[in-house]
């Protein structure tokens, strides 16, 4: 049992690290009582080693992915009141300043770590965007196949509870103004195409939600490259000799 726990814990460490230090750590762990504190210590340090050796884009992307998932879960479990919903499935990418800052930061971090070219920073930001977009695309897919419902509320309406609405995403009509990809429901498109283009009914089409993260990729690349340029500037400033 003890050996199994130790081997399981060791799997948390990166493979290269395990090859180098794994046998020694196993011997040390086998020679000592395996307390909860020891397990916690090995667990935490395993995560730390993995994080340390991971690419910045993987870490940032994972954080964004978890944040997006948390936003979805929160919306489904406890729908926010109108005006308190910070998460919009389809939004103007440029309107979300924090997201842009994250992409710039990731590009900068990538350049500072690897001193690569700008396209590498751009690629890192694209990776972040893809990872953050996975839950959105998954939600779109679940909406398309009818597993995840969509509840549309008018501004001021009280959202229903999870017990009442089940597995459904709550959306406020007022959010239409911030919609970026203006795709409407096919039925509306057929009956009132002009009105659809002008006013855009919410919620956006499920297919639109599914593909919306893909439209953010070019912009993500640009922000990542901007971050890379910032990283390059920081490196140059560090290298510049002090004026005498």
């Amino acid at each position, binding site marked *: 049992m003890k050996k199994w726990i130790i081997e399981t814990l060791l799997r948390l460490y990166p493979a290269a690290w395990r090859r180098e230090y794994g046998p020694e*750590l196993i011997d*040390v*762990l086998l*020679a*000592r009582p395996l307390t909860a504190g020891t397990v916690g*210590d090995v*667990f*935490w340090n395993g995560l730390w080693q993995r994080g340390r050796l991971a690419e910045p884009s993987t870490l940032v992307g994972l954080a964004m992915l978890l944040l997006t998932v948390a936003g979805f879960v929160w919306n489904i479990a406890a729908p926010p009141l109108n005006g308190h919903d910070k998460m919009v499935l389809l939004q103007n990418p440029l309107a979300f300043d924090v997201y842009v800052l994250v992409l710039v930061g990731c590009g900068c971090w990538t350049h500072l770590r690897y001193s690569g070219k700008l396209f590498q920073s751009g690629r890192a930001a694209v990776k972040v965007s893809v990872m953050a977009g996975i839950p959105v695309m998954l939600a779109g897919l679940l909406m398309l196949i009818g597993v995840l419902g969509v509840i549309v509320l008018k501004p001021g309406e009280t959202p229903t509870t999870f017990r009442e609405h089940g597995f459904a995403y709550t959306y406020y009509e007022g959010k239409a103004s911030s919609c970026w990809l203006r795709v409407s429901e096919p039925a509306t498109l057929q009956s009132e195409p002009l009105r659809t283009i002008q006013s855009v009914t919410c919620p956006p089409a499920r297919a639109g939600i599914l593909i919306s993260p893909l439209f953010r990729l070019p912009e993500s690349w640009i922000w990542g490259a901007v971050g890379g340029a910032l990283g390059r500037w920081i490196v140059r400033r560090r290298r510049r000799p002090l004026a005498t």
Partner: protein
Amino acid sequence: MARKPRTGPASDPELLILSSLASGPKHGYAIMSDVEIFANVTLGPGTLYTAITRLVEKKLIAPQSSAGRQRPYKLTAQGATGLTEQLNAMRRVATVGLRRLRPA
């Protein structure tokens, strides 16, 4: 039961490992036992090997070849210099701090 490490620079795992290796090469388990004796600090195995990894990367310690699974680590010249500098700096701070604490 593992003792909770004291806080402060004297419980820094890297400093403790370097101090332990100052008396000669040791493998991981021997470093842990030595640190427990001279500093009264119990380093967790994960913490120990994370610190060892960092010290090897900084070239402050180096693994020696061994027939067994446990490789001994030895202090490099760079590590000895770094440790001396750190301990001297700590001694200066400790001397001043203790002198100021003394009643006039």
